């Protein structure tokens, strides 16, 4: 049993998928690699948006998604007409405290069983994905099939 701090702070944890790939930070890019003793997975920070009423319901909890350290957040933008996932320097609490939802930084977090999906709020139908073999960067995809994994296991760190 552990008592939480009485300040609002993000939920932190690790992400894995069915292929036992973990997210690691390489430069300014998140890549998925096979989990090994020598590879330190990033600690993910999640915090729900305070204003879900402005967003679509029933797609999951709108959350901001970032890293605990360094203060980076994931966002979705269009690059050459293609929705693209980027990692940018951004304090997640600044997003949380905004009076309006900051859509590019928001993902619908849909939980089913032990797996989670992260769907872009800015580009509904586009999900965070990794390649099945690993050693590739996180991308946005709308192809929910074999080539990419969009189901992740989020494990909360105490």
């Amino acid at each position, binding site marked *: *049993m552990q008592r*939480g701090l009485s300040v609002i702070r993000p939920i932190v944890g690790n992400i894995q998928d*069915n292929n036992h790939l973990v997210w690691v930070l390489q430069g300014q890019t998140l890549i998925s690699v096979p*989990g090994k*003793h020598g590879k330190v997975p990033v600690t993910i920070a999640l915090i729900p948006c*305070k204003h879900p009423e402005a967003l679509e319901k029933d797609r999951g909890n709108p959350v901001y998604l970032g890293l605990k350290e360094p203060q980076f957040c994931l966002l979705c933008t269009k690059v050459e007409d293609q929705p693209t996932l980027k990692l940018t320097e951004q304090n997640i609490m600044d997003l949380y405290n905004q009076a309006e939802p900051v859509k590019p930084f928001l993902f619908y977090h849909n939980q089913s069983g032990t797996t989670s999906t992260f769907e872009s709020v800015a580009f509904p139908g586009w999900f965070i994905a990794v390649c099945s073999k690993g050693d*590739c960067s996180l991308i946005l995809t709308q192809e929910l099939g074999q080539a990419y994994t969009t189901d992740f296991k*989020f*494990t909360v760190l105490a």
Partner: protein
Amino acid sequence: MLSLLLCGVSIALLPVIRADECDIISVQDETPAVGQPFAFNCTYPPLTSGKVYVTWYKYPSNIPVSKNTQSRIHQDQNWILFLPLAWEDSGIYQCVINNTDTCHRIHVNLTVFKKYWCGASRNSRPYSLDEYQQILHVGKDDSLTCHLNFPKSCVLDSIKWYKDCKEIEGERFASWGIKLSVNNVSAEDRGNYACQARLTHTGKQYTVLNSITVNVTEKVGNGRRIPKIIYPKNNSIEVQLGSTLIVDCNITDTRENTNLRCWRVNDTLVDIYYSDSKRIQEGIESHISFQDHNFYTVNITFLEVKMEDYGHPFMCHAGVSAAYFTLKLPVPDFRAYLIGGLLALTGAAVSAVCIYSIFKIDIVLWYRSAFHSTGSIEDGKLYDAYVLYPKPQGERPSHDVDTLVLKILPEVLERQCGYRLFIFGRDEFPGQAVANVIDDNIKLCRRLIIIIVPESLSLDLLKNMSEEQIAVYNALIQDGMKVILIELEKVKDYTAMPESIQYIRQKHGAIQWSGDFTEQSQCAKTKFWKKVRYHMPPKRYPPSSSVQLLKHTPCDLTAGKWEASVGFITP
């Protein structure tokens, strides 16, 4: 000729110079096992996503790694491939990534080590950096993955799985592709696994062996995903107008949930709804973590409850769940009022009785003065009281008794209060027989005043006086007359007194004389005289004409002062 030579040298050096100038964008450590195939992909997304040229070097050599597929170490597309690794392969390898206008380097520190597996001693290294880490979820159907990352030129097949050096068998396990499915995972499934694969490259076969450390997660609750609001329960709360109120919302939810918990009114966050007044605010969320769930508390604070808050739902949200409470004014408790009223009445009655018992004499005297007229009663009586007192006998005159009876009593009761007394020795006609005087006159009196003096003086007197016996007899038996017993001093032993006196004392009590015997200091308003007057008949009678002539203050008037200087005239 020389210039041509220099030109040739510079062309040869060009890639070297350029490689050194490229930025190192990543430094990685690899610790593969000797004797096994090993491959490393030079990839750095998004840099390597487009069209790039990759060249591998072994530091400090400037000569690129061979691209000959027959070579033990060679470059295959962006990969560097060791078929197999030898001890001397330890060292620094660099891949240079070139595109049209930039170049970058990835630095790989390769340390070849001896993998001890099954049968060999493992004491030296419990974990090696190349060991994979995987997790199985208890109670679920899960799988392990054999990561076999090699270029496409390599064919991998015949994968076998081992746990603690024994090949895995059983119904719960099934190998398909690079996966081993594990049905109904239990805690015993944790341990040291290995997957072994056959690698075929240009007709040659090699064996790849990956070690995997497998951990299991604790059983995850019942998989319930909907948060449960324990309180509020769509209930109402009684609260006084104007008071401060704090209400907790208690929620249980999974540890991994990302649900928003908040208080809303009219579907708006309370902090926004009351952003101007801040009269109602949401508190800071806290939580307690248990093994399989979290317990959250977030409160709502009313700094001051206002009329508009009553009957309005205040909604606690936790993800898709919601529950509210409303406020209502407290219902007055009639039973409490009834009990309180009865208690107050009882208290008032008790205090009234107490006050009456303490101030009984004053109240009665005030009542008489306020509501009784001064007219005479037609009851056939002539006197208000017959005064019976011990007479001085022979050589022992009782000066105090005489003073009291002949001076002070008439002064106060007759002159100040307007009573008429019959005092034997003052009011009888000379020559009358004593027995007749008493018998006749006592019948004309409303009260009998008996003056008692301490035994030494009075005992004999009382005993020897027949008139006294007659009077007492008449008073007690014939007329039922009220008797006022005045003790001149404290009588210690009544047993020495005649029985009739003892009876009177027992029935009516006695009044203890207080004060001195100077008639001038007597006032009807002292405690003693109030007691006497209390026992006297209620009616006041017009004083005798001689007394009336004197200027005096009526004794029953509460105001006014007794003037000690006024003279006293006996009739």
